[in-house]
């Protein structure tokens, strides 16, 4: 049974690798609202899932060794070899982001609502996991190679930023279509409430580690701040409320029929979560000079029991000495997407040029992308996407969509198809899938 499930999982991922777009660069999400019609297409129900991991220095092979640990289909080895660790082109500043989002939504455009024509609404439920980290080369080297190579040197961990959060959203939004003949547009404004599931963040200010040349002592200077809601085991499942927040989405779609192009702008998840008062804030502002355990106090004699009292728990207790229970407010990642799409080749080819960005997510650069979707017989389309920026470098993706019936549309894709082919040379991978039912 396990083998069968692994094969199914593998097939889905492979399909995704040859398919459409990730939500990071998705323009269809709000474009579908623009296309709704109370007479022919008043309802839309959709289910989507997207995920990505991306870095400017951590290879897909390395990431997969961690993320898909033990998945036979990927033949991933849980051991990170020296060559694998060394293969990552770690830079002075390194970024890594990952996110997955699952969404169910329902959109309705009635003939009239509140006395207005072309006014509709959308209700959605989403589950999001987000993680990002900004780290130095020294931190990577110390973590994966140890400090031996830093004998006589100072490793600088300053400006580490690490965040990982899980949350669920319920959103409600209104959209209004303007049905000008030549340049129709649609605006959308939605608000939502957020249920915080868990949050962890660690940020280093000035943090260095000096290893004496022969290893006789180590100096650690640490100024850091750690937030966490994981104060108790089994209290961070999806159904646990560890924080509450609010968010807003704004989207605008403009279509120039004369010029045969349309522009999509969206600003999603402008919001925050206030994590509960039983969360922990742990400040570190310490300088540690470690030159070994003093053994003078240990009794002489035979049959001595060697007990150092040096345990993980005692170490954590020491580090958590200044722990404070407190509530805190943290922004959730905001997603900006701006794109312009030109229809070409008798409207069979949609050429898009766009930019997307994640705020509050240690994303160093905007993602600039260009893609083309070619529609075959108006039912099946295939697309190619080229992108650069974001957490990573150059990315190349493929996508496919198919309308199996008049009412059902399936979209699958990946923005980083090369990642599956050249895992050692590529630094991002993503998958995207959506099923839409219109009626």
């Amino acid at each position, binding site marked *: 049974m396990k083998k069968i499930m692994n094969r199914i999982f593998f097939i889905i991922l492979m399909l995704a690798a040859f398919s459409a777009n990730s939500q990071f660069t998705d323009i269809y999400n709000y474009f579908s609202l623009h296309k709704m019609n109370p007479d022919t297409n008043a309802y839309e129900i959709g289910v989507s899932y997207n995920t990505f991991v991306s870095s400017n220095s951590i290879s897909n092979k390395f990431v997969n*060794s*961690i993320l898909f*640990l*033990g998945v036979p289909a990927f033949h991933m080895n*849980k*051991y*990170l*070899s*020296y060559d694998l*660790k060394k293969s990552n082109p770690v830079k002075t500043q390194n970024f890594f982001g990952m996110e997955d989002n699952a969404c169910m939504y329902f959109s309705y455009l009635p003939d009239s609502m509140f006395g207005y024509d072309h006014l509709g609404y959308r209700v959605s439920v989403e589950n999001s996991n987000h993680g990002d980290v900004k780290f130095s080369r020294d931190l990577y080297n110390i*973590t*994966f*190679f*140890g*400090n*031996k*190579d830093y*004998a006589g040197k100072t490793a600088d961990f300053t400006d580490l930023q690490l965040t990982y959060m899980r949350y669920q959203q319920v959103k409600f939004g209104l959209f209004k279509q303007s049905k000008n003949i030549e340049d129709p547009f649609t605006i959308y404004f939605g608000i939502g409430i957020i249920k915080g599931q868990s949050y962890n963040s660690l940020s280093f200010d000035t943090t260095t580690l000096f*290893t004496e040349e*022969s*290893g*006789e*002592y*180590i100096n650690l200077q640490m100024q850091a701040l750690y937030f966490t809601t994981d104060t108790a085991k089994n209290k961070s499942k999806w159904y646990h409320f560890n924080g509450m927040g609010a968010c807003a989405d704004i989207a605008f779609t403009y279509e120039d029929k004369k010029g045969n192009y349309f522009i999509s702008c969206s600003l999603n998840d402008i919001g925050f979560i206030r994590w509960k008062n039983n969360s922990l804030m742990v400040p570190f502002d310490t300088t540690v000079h*470690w*030159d*070994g*355990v*003093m*053994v*003078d106090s*240990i009794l*002489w*004699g*035979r*049959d*001595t029991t*060697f*007990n*150092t009292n*040096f*345990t*993980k728990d005692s170490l954590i207790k020491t580090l958590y000495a200044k722990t404070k229970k407190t509530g805190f407010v943290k922004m959730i990642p905001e997603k900006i997407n701006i794109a312009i799409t030109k229809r070409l080749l008798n409207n069979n080819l949609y050429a898009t040029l766009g930019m997307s960005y994640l705020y509050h997510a240690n994303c160093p650069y905007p993602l600039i992308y260009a893609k083309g979707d070619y529609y075959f017989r108006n039912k099946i389309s295939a697309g190619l996407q080229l992108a650069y920026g974001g957490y990573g470098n150059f990315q190349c993706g493929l996508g496919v969509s198919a309308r199996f019936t008049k009412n059902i549309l399936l979209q699958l894709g990946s923005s980083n198809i090369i990642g599956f082919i050249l895992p050692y040379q590529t630094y991002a991978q993503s998958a995207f899938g959506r099923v839409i039912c219109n009626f």
Partner: protein
Amino acid sequence: MKFLNKIVFIFLFCLHIFFLLSLNSCKKESSEPNWDVNLLAPLAKATLTVDNIIADTLKKVNPDNSISLVYQSGLYKFSLDTLFKIPDTTVNYVAKLSNLDLGTINITHRTSFGDIANKDKEDNGPNSSLYQSIMNAHNSGMPTQIDPITEQQFDSVAIDASQYFQTVTLSQGFLDIKIDNQLPVSITNLIFEVRNQSTNIVVVQDTFPFISPFSQAEKTKSLAGLTVEGHMLGMVKLSSPGGEVTLDTSMAITAQISIYDLQVQSAIASFPGQNVVDKKEKTAFKINDVQLSRVLARSGNINIDVYNTLHETLHFNYKVYSATKNNIPLEINGTIPQAFNGNVSHISVNKNLQGYDFNLKGIGPVEQIYGDQNGNGFIDPDTVNTIFSTLVGSIDSSGNQIPLSMQDSIYFHCSFTNLSPDYVQGYLGRDTISESSAIETNILNEFVGASLNFNDVKVSLVVSNQIGISGKVMVNELKAINTSNNQSATLSFTLPVNPFSIAKPVNPNSTLIDVTPTINTLQLNNTNSNINSLINVVPNKINYSVQVYTNYNIPPPIPGTGADFIYYGDQISANLEVEVPLSVIASNVTLCDTSTFSLGKTNTDKITGGNLILFVDNEFPVEANPQVYLLDSNNAVLDIIIPSGAVVLAGDVNTTTERVTTAKRTKISVPITEARLEKLKKTKRIRATASFITRPQNQHVKIYNDYTMRFKVVGDFSYKLH
């Protein structure tokens, strides 16, 4: 050995930390990625100082900061118990009745002219001339010629002493007969006789030849050896020449009988209250050759058993004048019920003697206060070991007539037991106390088997004397033995310092003040003995034999004048004191120690190897060559830890100052491979050895108090991180 222990300990300690880190990182092994990291980190540090090597009790810091090993071991202790013990002493009296007194018995018999007239009328009829003349004289009131009275006998005069006794046999006693002649005529040939009524035995008989009118005559008779009954009969015979007299028939002649000073041999009588036992006794404690004049009791008991054969309740009082507490003599009183139905009655009394001050000079001090006690007419001189006591037994008068004889007695058993003194004084005798034994020394324990050469060794035999007695100590034998190589050396003297005298301390004369001991030292050095050769044997055992002579050549003083003393707990103690300056040439000093070892449940699977690096900064001028062996349960060697040839270098001695001024650094790397870790899992014991040699070789090097040897263990290893 502590140096070696420290190295081994640090090594094991670092392994422990090493494994501990690994253990913490091994959790969730199956669900998390893992990778190797190469760590370079200090694990442990330690500083070995002279204090770590030499216990404070064995170390003496000299003014130049150099070190001497000092060692002190008790050889022997003599306390009061060793010198003598006051034996349990018993006093037994069979105290027979010394006196039985029945008091004075008075009997009066009156014979009037009327009695004489009636007797004559009875004998000769109413017309008898004597009767008629007496009656005429009485009736006329005129002088009348009274006829001579021929022998007239008055028989069966009842004499009743039954209220005093039923029968009594006297060992002594007197009977006084007093005749008071109130007749106007002379009495001649008055014969007085008393006989027991039942046996008709004459008790007493006497004759008064002539008693003038209105005069008295008296006679005393001894009753010794007589048995007298309570019911007696008296007989009086009298005669008179008569004459012309005026008379009255009531005129009478009175016989007054007094029985007194009776010492009863036996009697059935009603005895009056009286002392029946009165005994004075001197009791000597038998302590050989010791003449005690005073003992202050710390503990002890006096037990008194008294047995009574009398048919009368007996009271006794036992008083020891020689034992006082708060100036009150020890006194024990008791009452013993009367013997009953042939069974002797008994009483037992016990009294705690704690705090009693015994003056053991005998009866003399008592007589000085109370006068002559033993009736010899003078105050007895002081003696020793002797107490003086009295025993008085008395009976009360019950009014009952009881059988009692001089054969009746009181059995008195008195014992002084477990008498332990707080203080004794006197002449404590001449004694010779021998002590032979062996002591294990620990001063050079770690170096047994080594070749050591010390300078200026000093050994002292120090005798501390708190006992108020002088004497001498003779060292018969002092032998240093090295049991590991069977070498030994025996002390011999090159100067006549043996035996040596022990002075007597000053008596504080108070149990509240400690006696300041005299310190008597026999110092052994190169000039008076061969002591260096004993120390260079590197002994771990010393055999000794000594003799202590008390009051050596001191004769006993006049009894009671001895001034030796001992307070409880004070003692003569002898210590052997050794001082070895740590200026030494050492070679072939090989130390070895074995410790049990177990990794337990420590997980070593994720350790992929590395090195433990030991840095040693050594200021001691001693080079060490350590080694650590891993042993299995059969003591078979599984692995050798320290790389061959690894040496902890000695500090360089400055030839001018003869000190090490800069620590010498040594780096020893111990590989920790997976194979070695597997062997560690099987290890049950760890044996550590190290050989030492002082540098520069063949030159005495001094060890200074501020020398240190600093250890730092750095882990240079890789292991899987989860």
